[in-house]
């Protein structure tokens, strides 16, 4: 006697074989241990727990936020965690703004980091198309690195790039990149002031200060010492999650200034 469809689905759910047949996703991690082959952990315990293990591999994810919101700090933390796992990582730095001392202080193993320095300039003057060409060039470099494959983490940092230069990129660019990275073990990360890949992205986290009541900038969230800047408190909010993480989850990060930074 044939079983009813509901009975079959019930059985499949019981055996946890329903991932491809229904829309229900399996639990985050049965043993509570993040799977490094599915996600790229950020190295921050609370954030990884919220993200279900980290940024998904085989997807294009985003770290967005305004200036001084901790995007670079989080990115360097991810690079450090990836290199500590023995992975090779690549950073396409569209504006050539990486501070090597900060990366070293964050724990990035620099010999495992392929740094591609872009030509985007913050003051193009009368050459309006200069940045557009440079962004497109950086995107091509990003594409080449993704095509090479087997990098653990590949980041495209356009955090300070002019917004119009990013917006003028064809939307299919991100679809193509997402298609390129699908099925691979690489976690692609875009860093910008606003969302770039939109629906192509696997995970989008937005960084900012004050969303969880940290107070006004400069009064409580940003700390200064007697010498120089000491750190600030950052809210990380998951605004889009295709894979395991739950949307609207919020995590508080605290950044600390490294020695000499």
């Amino acid at each position, binding site marked *: 006697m044939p079983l009813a469809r509901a009975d079959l689905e019930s059985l499949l759910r019981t055996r946890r074989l329903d991932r491809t047949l229904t829309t229900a996703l399996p639990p985050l991690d049965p043993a509570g241990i993040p799977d490094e082959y599915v996600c790229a952990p950020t190295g921050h315990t609370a954030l990884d727990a919220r993200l279900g293990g980290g940024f998904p591999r085989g997807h294009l994810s985003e770290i967005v936020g305004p200036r001084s919101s901790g995007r670079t700090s989080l990115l360097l933390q991810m690079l450090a965690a990836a290199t500590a*796992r023995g992975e090779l990582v690549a950073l396409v730095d569209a504006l050539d703004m990486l501070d090597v001392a900060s990366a070293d202080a964050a724990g990035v193993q620099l010999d*495992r980091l392929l740094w591609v*320095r872009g030509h985007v300039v913050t003051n193009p003057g009368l050459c309006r198309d200069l940045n557009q060409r440079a962004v497109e060039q950086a995107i091509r470099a990003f594409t080449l690195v993704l095509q090479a494959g087997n990098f653990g983490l590949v980041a495209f940092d356009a955090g300070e790039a002019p917004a119009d230069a990013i917006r003028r990129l064809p939307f299919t660019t991100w679809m193509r990149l997402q298609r390129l990275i699908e099925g691979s073990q690489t976690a692609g990360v875009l860093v910008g002031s606003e969302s770039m890949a939109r629906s192509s992205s696997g995970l989008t986290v937005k960084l900012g200060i004050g969303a969880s009541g940290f107070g006004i900038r400069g009064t409580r969230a940003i700390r200064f010492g007697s010498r120089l800047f000491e750190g600030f408190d950052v809210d990380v909010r998951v605004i889009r999650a295709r894979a395991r993480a739950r949307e609207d989850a919020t995590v508080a990060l605290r950044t600390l200034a490294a020695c000499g930074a």
Partner: protein
Amino acid sequence: MRNVTLESQSNPESHIPHPVFLYACLYRPPQSEPARASLAVIAQEFSPRYECHRDDLVSIDVSGLERLLGPARVIGEELRRDAASRGVRVHVAVAGARMAALVLAHARPGVTIVEPGGEAGALAPLAIGILERLDDVVGADPCVPPSQGYGEARQSAKRDGSRPGPTLRSGQARGSAPPSDAMVETLSVFKRWGLKTLGELAALPSADLASRLGRQALVWQAIARGDDVRPLVPTLEEERFESSLELEWPIEGLEPLSFVLTRLLEPLSTRLERRDRGAAVLHVLLRLVTKDVHARRLELPAPMRDVRALRTLALLDLESHPPAGAVDRVAVVIDPTPGRVLQHTLFTRAQPTPEQVSTLLARLGALMGQDRLGAPATVDSYRPGAFAMMPFATEHDDQRRTRGTRREQDEPDAARSALNVVSALRRCRQPVPARVTIDDGRPARVTTDRRGFVGGTVVSCAGPWRTSGNWWADRSGGTQTQPSYWNRDEWDVALNDGAVYRIFQDRDTEAWFIDAIVD
């Protein structure tokens, strides 16, 4: 007929001609003037089967050469005459055992001929100290363990796991090495036993000798008895890997050239694979219609023989260094190197292969410029934002590494914990000129003319942090943005628009700049 059949049945080997081996050894004694020809060249004139032990010692398989030259003595004389005509004075020994010929060539000048079967008798009167000069030759034999000392044979082999090195390849030069400590120790034991000649060593009972000095002593005894301890391993000529193609019609552009390169590289890759070799250097020689030769040399970061990778690298190089005219002849030469030995594992993450990384770096270099990619490195300098670019390695160990330098261990644990993130800077490679209003000795307002850096009122700040360096250097040196000399006061300021900047005032010009963004 029946008799023949019966005879062959009763003694089947009686009609099979017994192979007669004959080996010649050339030894060049130390001379004041350098040799004008190598012994390998002389050996090649007589037999393709020769083995170079050192640059002053070569053994040649001259079996069968009697039919061409005559008896062994004639062969020996021919060898000596040929060497003399090339200006090389050699000792020649011809014997039925290779090791016996090697020993006799060391011991006796001129030409020494030993009839087959008489090796032990010829060696017997030689002093036992001659073995010292053969220590490196025996140690280099692939089948013979390196000489080991008294009672240490097994322990030493287990301890260091040393393996004998291969015989010399053509072109390699190596002189006689001093005897090893183990050899000296073994010989001293022989002398304490009262042994003076090889004949006395040969007469010792083998089992007792092995029980006292180990297996290596049996090797020395076999040499003293005139026995070969291993067959001759011929030295192979280094194969040239080159291929060329004359074009009926000159070609221009890289696209048709890629097909030609593929056609040239494919057989070379097959030959490399057959020889277990990889390409270390790729030479592309293009003869132009102007009769000039456009030569490009690619040093590959890792041995590779993948046709697509080699072709892509060659094309990318030619793309950045195009020939000046049409090409009518294409030649590819590969400098070989031993191939890579890869051991894959299921327990570590796959990493890009050296071919992939090399191709990627070449493509990125063609796209962005060679100076725009690599691995960053810190430098030993207090200059803000100082860094160096290192070539990105194509091969990395796949082990998870733990950071353990002293400086990192000294850092506070809090900054390393998984609960905090180290705050980072975004450097402005060209510091942004700014206008800073000072109130009570502290920045109160920061504005710029730069698009994207609006500025605003300073909410809070910290500083100044005075830093200077290279004060001894020429102040006119360097660039405007990265002078070799710097002297400035740094401030970290939080503006009311939410941005946190690191600004500085140049103490010489009193001009303000935005140096970095805290992010």
